[in-house]
């Protein structure tokens, strides 16, 4: 059996299991059957609230992702190539890596206020240590012979960054991006849950207070489906492209 057929069957089996559990439970306010979600889904879609909420959450995800990737890549490159600086910053990195996401989020809201800036800062700070760690590994593995070559031939600095450093870091950046997106959208929901009045996380918070399991599932599953589509349509093909020279 092909792997994509197995994937479809596996998802189908999950939905059947879910339906069976819902039928056994018998109470749609605790666990609605898969079919019970369609009507509220169309209602939210038609009213526009679902799409608006997703749009706002996506913008937050993109903003936090870009900040975390940029800052994390620069830090990782510096720490991976300058052992002196690495020795000083490494303990900080360990502290931030082990700081629970919730602590950073609460502190950002307390110190900066219940603002958009605090929300994005909290998510970004949560992700930077992770990106830095991955990129640092890549920077440590940079080829010293190519560096010597660029130096002797007097290669221009921007050319060196773009055509010598970046291709060597590309697999690490791709890896950090994929794990980054996966973690960031989950943290964004928590941030919205705790201190924002818009977005998917806010909707989940609201329906949680109303004990409306169906609506919590509608919002969660819609956003999960969107993030999986990003993974399959954008991130995986992009990764194949940066690896093209290896296959040639």
């Amino acid at each position, binding site marked *: 059996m092909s792997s994509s057929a197995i994937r479809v069957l596996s998802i189908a089996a999950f939905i059947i299991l879910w339906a069976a559990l819902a039928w056994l439970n018998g109470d749609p306010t605790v666990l609605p059957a898969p079919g019970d979600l369609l009507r509220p889904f169309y209602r939210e879609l038609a009213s526009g609230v679902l799409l608006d909420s997703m749009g706002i959450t996506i913008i937050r995800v993109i903003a936090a992702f870009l900040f975390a990737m940029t800052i994390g890549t620069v830090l990782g490159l510096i720490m991976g190539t300058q052992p002196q600086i690495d020795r000083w910053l490494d303990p900080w990195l360990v502290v931030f890596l082990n700081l629970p996401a919730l602590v950073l989020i609460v502190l950002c809201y307390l110190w900066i206020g219940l603002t958009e800036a605090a929300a994005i800062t909290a998510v970004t700070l949560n992700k930077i240590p992770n990106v830095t760690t991955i990129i640092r590994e890549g920077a440590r593995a940079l080829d010293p012979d190519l560096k*010597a070559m660029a*130096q*002797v031939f007097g290669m*221009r600095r921007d050319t060196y960054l773009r*055509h010598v450093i970046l*291709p060597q870091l590309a697999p690490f950046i791709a890896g950090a991006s994929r794990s980054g997106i996966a973690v960031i959208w989950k943290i964004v929901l928590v941030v919205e849950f705790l201190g924002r009045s818009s977005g998917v996380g806010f909707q989940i918070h609201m329906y949680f207070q109303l004990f409306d399991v169906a609506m919590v599932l509608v919002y969660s599953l819609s956003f999960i489906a969107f993030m999986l589509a990003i993974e399959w349509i954008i991130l995986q093909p992009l990764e194949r492209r940066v690896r093209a*020279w290896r296959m040639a």
Partner: protein
Amino acid sequence: MIRVDVKSKWFGKAEILKDVAFTLKRGECLAVLGPSGIGKSTLLRLVAGIDTAFEGGIDRPANMAFVFQEPTLLPWRSALDNLLLVHPSLSTEAATDMLASVGIGEKTDMFPGQLSLGQQRRLALARAFVGKPDLLLLDEPFVSLDEKMAEEMISLTERLMKKNAPATLFVTHEHREAARLADRTLVLAGSPASVFLPAGRGTLNKMEEVT
């Protein structure tokens, strides 16, 4: 004029080079002979400015080229881009001509990984010569090649050196290669390595007597 005066070079507590001095004129090729591990490559890296931690002084021109033991190409860029990225002022035509003159004119769009090892080394030679360097540094570029390919590469290097006439510093442990390409030969020996036989035309014969 290239002036090299290395008073001493240390790696940790081990002194590798001591009192190695020579000069090199434009169009001249100096071979540095010595057994493997004596510090020839270290000397070349000092001359190139890759390694700056040593006592002494080196006057070198700005326009240099290096042919490493390994081809040291950018595997993610095409053969043509491997020349153009290193030499931004080079025109595409000039780069293509250079690739043709080292015998890989058909391979301009290929990645280094798609070329044979011999073709990769030709590309590395093309990259070195296409910038018309004032100082060319060769670090055992013919090592690990079979005899036929080594011979091809040596003739190609000879031809390119005649055409461009850079000052050339050539590191090798093969007497024959040195005799073939170099005007003068300098022998490194001892620990720390020092100039065992000074550069001169008769050096090679003396060297053969010694070894």
